[in-house]
């Protein structure tokens, strides 16, 4: 526990994880989540896994958090700030979290990993590349297919609803002015959503 870098990074990571979940404004929560993910990337650097750290920063901070921030901007409403979480819910959540810490901590303290001696060997990038493209190549291909399937699935989820919305709008062309105005507002929102999807 003597490494000051380790203590600083773990303080940043844990504090920003709590802020990400508890800060009232969702955008600041997303930025705190980005800091948590950067903290985990710093842990990877401390563990001599620089490639995984770069991957983490590129994928999480570069893509995932930006995507989350776009979605928040797309669907933000003041009403969310009033979502009642309830004192009892909060207490139950804290009890479960502390129970997890206590049980797993006791399990680890009783195990033999505390006596492990870290060796000086560092897994190299060459080793990772060889493993991923030889022994784990089926998993690598399956991963590529999973990613493609999830991207197509996300696009389909977003597209089908839009078509349905256009039909609704056509059928509502005979109704009153107020409803038509609502449909117009919906169209504006839909355009915004379309822009968000292009950003993706």
């Amino acid at each position, binding site marked *: 526990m003597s*490494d000051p870098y380790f203590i600083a990074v773990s303080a940043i990571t844990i504090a920003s994880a709590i802020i990400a979940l508890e800060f009232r404004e969702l955008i600041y929560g997303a930025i705190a989540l980005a800091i948590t993910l950067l903290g985990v990337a710093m842990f990877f650097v401390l563990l001599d896994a620089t490639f995984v750290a770069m991957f983490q920063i590129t994928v999480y901070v570069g893509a995932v958090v930006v995507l989350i921030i776009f979605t928040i901007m797309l669907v933000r409403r003041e009403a*969310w700030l009033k979502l009642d979480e309830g004192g009892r819910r909060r207490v139950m959540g804290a009890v479960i979290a502390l129970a997890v810490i206590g049980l797993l901590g006791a399990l680890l303290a009783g195990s033999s990993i505390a006596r492990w001696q870290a*060796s000086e*060997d560092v897994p190299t990038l060459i080793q990772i590349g060889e493993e991923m493209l030889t022994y784990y190549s089926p998993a690598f291909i399956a991963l590529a297919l999973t990613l493609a399937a999830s991207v197509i699935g996300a696009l389909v989820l977003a597209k089908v609803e839009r078509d349905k919305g256009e039909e609704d709008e056509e059928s509502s062309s005979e109704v009153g002015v107020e409803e038509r105005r609502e449909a117009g507002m919906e169209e504006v929102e839909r355009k915004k959503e379309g822009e968000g999807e292009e950003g993706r």
Partner: protein
Amino acid sequence: MAEILDYTIVSIILLAIGIYGLTVKRNFIRMLFAVEIIVNAANLNLVAFSRLMPSPNATGQSFALFSIAIAAAEVAVGLALIIVAYRIYRNIDIKGLKRLSG
């Protein structure tokens, strides 16, 4: 150099924070944050064990790379679901989504 026990303790704390978020929060996007934190706790464990085992090898790091890629796909689908649910219910309170169960 920190010991393996320190890394596992940090990972457990992150896991507990994620579980707290999943239990308490009713906002769909916050729950996605909690899932991300849990996935990162798992990745931290994988990389820590990969480096600090008595005989280090690269398998843990390869697994962490797979895990990060899968988590990215999961976020893409989750956010698409949020947008669809928001279009239908005009809200992202998960209580509204109970009607999905039919």
